[in-house]
């Protein structure tokens, strides 16, 4: 409006160009969802549609983020834009926390309320008498019908907390430390330390995913523990599965940050992408601690 008025507290406002990526992204999501619906309902051609959706999704990430990185390297973002990015990322992580909260809520509800009620506790005595009079409740449980991969009457074993899960805990906690070392190195301008410790971080992340995948394999082939193993299998695989998925995404993000570091991106003062990924990684770490305590240990 008033061009003569000098801005005091802010730089001049920044408003970006129009961009094809959001619309492209909406079409992508639509194709992805249609593909998923077709795959679930009839299989066949749906898998190709789903595959196309994922392909486009990668295109979206490369295109959209690539544009933003280019703009950032050209130095056209002011501090206000930087702050917007930071706030946006932290609120996004809050939404992720709430997503996990839904599944933790399901776990607590099943353990503390649903299973005791099914075994006749509280005011639910009749449930026990009429429907499931042999059912004792307790945890771990695959329910009164003992659902599992071989139908009802299945038995299963759980993964002991002191085995690979403990190693995985150590891996993730260590990766948190290496990431912090890398961050300090970035701020102090020690680029070589930064590169090494950032690489260590995502390698630890991928190692975690690898060990987790081996655990899943063991659970499916030897322990009788699958997604269909009653409420234990449901909560176990949905919680650890979504977590593992987030670790994979986080490790990929770390990898990209590392590649950008190798290309000389980021300065000691300005490195939002690095910090955003670091927050995300610590979030994934904290979720794991919750998982370790409530899913594996207690």
């Amino acid at each position: 409006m008033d061009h003569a008025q000098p801005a005091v507290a802010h730089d001049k406002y920044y408003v970006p160009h129009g961009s094809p990526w959001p619309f492209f992204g909406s079409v992508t999501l639509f194709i992805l969802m249609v593909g998923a619906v077709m795959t679930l309902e009839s299989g066949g051609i749906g898998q190709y549609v789903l595959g196309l959706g994922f392909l486009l999704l990668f295109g979206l990430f490369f295109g959209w983020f690539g544009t933003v990185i280019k703009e950032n390297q050209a130095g056209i973002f002011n501090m206000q834009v930087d702050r917007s990015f930071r706030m946006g990322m932290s609120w996004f992580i809050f939404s992720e926390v709430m997503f996990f909260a839904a599944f933790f809520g399901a776990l607590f509800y099943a353990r503390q309320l649903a299973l005791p009620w099914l075994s006749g506790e509280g005011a639910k005595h009749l449930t026990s008498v009429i429907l499931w009079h042999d059912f004792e409740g307790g945890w771990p449980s695959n329910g009164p019908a003992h659902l599992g991969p071989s139908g009802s009457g299945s038995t299963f074993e759980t993964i002991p907390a002191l085995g690979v899960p403990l190693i995985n805990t150590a891996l993730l906690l260590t990766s948190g430390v290496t990431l912090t070392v890398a961050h300090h190195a970035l701020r102090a301008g020690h680029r070589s330390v930064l590169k090494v410790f950032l690489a260590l971080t995502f390698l630890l992340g991928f190692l975690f995913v690898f060990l987790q995948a081996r655990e899943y394999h063991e659970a499916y082939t030897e322990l009788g523990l699958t997604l269909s193993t009653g409420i234990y299998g449901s909560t176990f695989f949905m919680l650890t599965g979504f977590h593992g998925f987030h670790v994979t995404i986080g490790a990929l993000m770390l990898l990209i940050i590392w590649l950008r570091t190798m290309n000389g991106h980021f300065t000691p003062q300005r490195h939002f992408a690095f910090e955003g990924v670091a927050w995300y990684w610590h979030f994934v770490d904290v979720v794991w601690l919750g998982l370790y305590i409530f899913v594996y240990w207690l």
Partner: protein
Amino acid sequence: MKTVSTNNVSADRHDDHKPSGIGRWLFATNHKDIGTMYLVFSCIMFFIGGAMALAIRAELFRPGMQFFDPGFYNQMVTNHALVMIFGAVMPAFVGLANWMIPLQIGAPDMALPRMNNYSFWILPFAFTLLLGSLFTPSGGPAGGWTMYPPLSLQSGNSFPMMIFAVHLMGASSIMGAINVIVTILNMRAPGMSLLKLPLFCWTWLITAYLLIAVMPVLAGAVTMLLTDHYFGTSFFNPAGGGDPVMFQHIFWFFGHPEVYILILPAFGIVSEIIPTFSRKPMFGYDAMVYATASIAFLSFIVWAHHMFTVGMPLAGQMFFMMSTMLIAVPTGVKVFNWTTTMWKGSLSFEPPMLFALAFLFLFTIGGFSGLMLAIVPADYQYQDTYFVVAHFHYVLVPGAIFAIMAAVYYWLPKWTGTMYDMTLAKWHFWVSTVSVNVLFFPQHFLGLAGMPRRIPDYNVQFTDWNMVSSVGGFVFGFSQLVFVWVIIKAVRGGPPASAKVWDADMPGLEWSVPSPAPYHSFDTPPDVH
């Protein structure tokens, strides 16, 4: 598209030059363009959802089956709710937020303009998926918008379409909400402290917080439905140790804050309009802010009042009854503050004020019936009757939707630069307000007499009030065409509106820019006094 900018490197378009062609809309980053798209989309969805409502009212005009089979009736009930909540009311509020928040806080645009466009363009695709499910061999989702298992798990091909549509709507809402929060927290003009923020921004700030907190929970709940249906999980299957009631708990943990998501921005709108047309500043501004925050906090601990009859421990019923009644306190603060703002004011009754006043009275009726429903022993009688339908339609139609219409009538001259046809708008108001009461008030009687909701047929003793209600429904439905006509007329031209638009001394920054508001509102931060 390209403009030569000589005096700065950071902003590439800062004059009033609009991009041309379809690209302006598909690739939009301008908050006003995106806001307009949201509002137009919401209007289309309002009429689609409204057509479904009229189908329901036509079927219910007489006892016995008239037009549809019961399955199709259930599809109408389910989709009417999903379309109106996620397609009409929420996008309308986001559209208003897009248009007005940057103008009100002195910002050039939303903080994250591209994500803004993303969150809009997801919506048409989400609703294509949802409404497309109506044309599948098994028909659309018919288990109610609450998607309770095991019923919802028995839907046909429409089941995954509904689930993924809800995922998309959730993604859109979360991105929209992040944008609103970041815009308000980061883009305010210097000097605009939080307690100088217009109340519309305040209510939206808190609404956005609620959205980010609960939309992911809904995503989690429907994901569990999906895995129960296709991947053999037992979240809601007692045989495997799960519990269908657990879905209701998770769903309403989302659902109750969602109710406030649908009404808090309406509170904000009314808090803008009543002071303007009373020519007095808002009475108890700070109290309004704290009341909004209290309502938001309480919304997280009242969810089980939607499910008193499913069987829960007495202590649970007591807790949720008391916490629900507590909400009446901050809500009462708001109603008293609006009333007190008008006290000894110099009132005038232009269309926005008329709608705001109708909101004040009719929303309060909905609030009181809510208080009745909160009483556990009484709720055993009311649960799943038309009384519940009357209750939430009172808070949503003459509540949320009247507030949206009030907002459109309030800010339309700022958007188009022209004054709309006041006479026609007043006609729209009076016909709507009378017919909406004819439509919904008899439903209280029907519910108290025991007529169940979501059933296409009913006992003959309910006939009279159902006929009255249906007549009200058709009059209300068709009178909304007047609303569209007023808007179209104003967009095509009319007497020019001044920058202030209304004959009152309003502090809001949106009145400091000319009407229509320039394509880029503020290039440099304005002064706030």
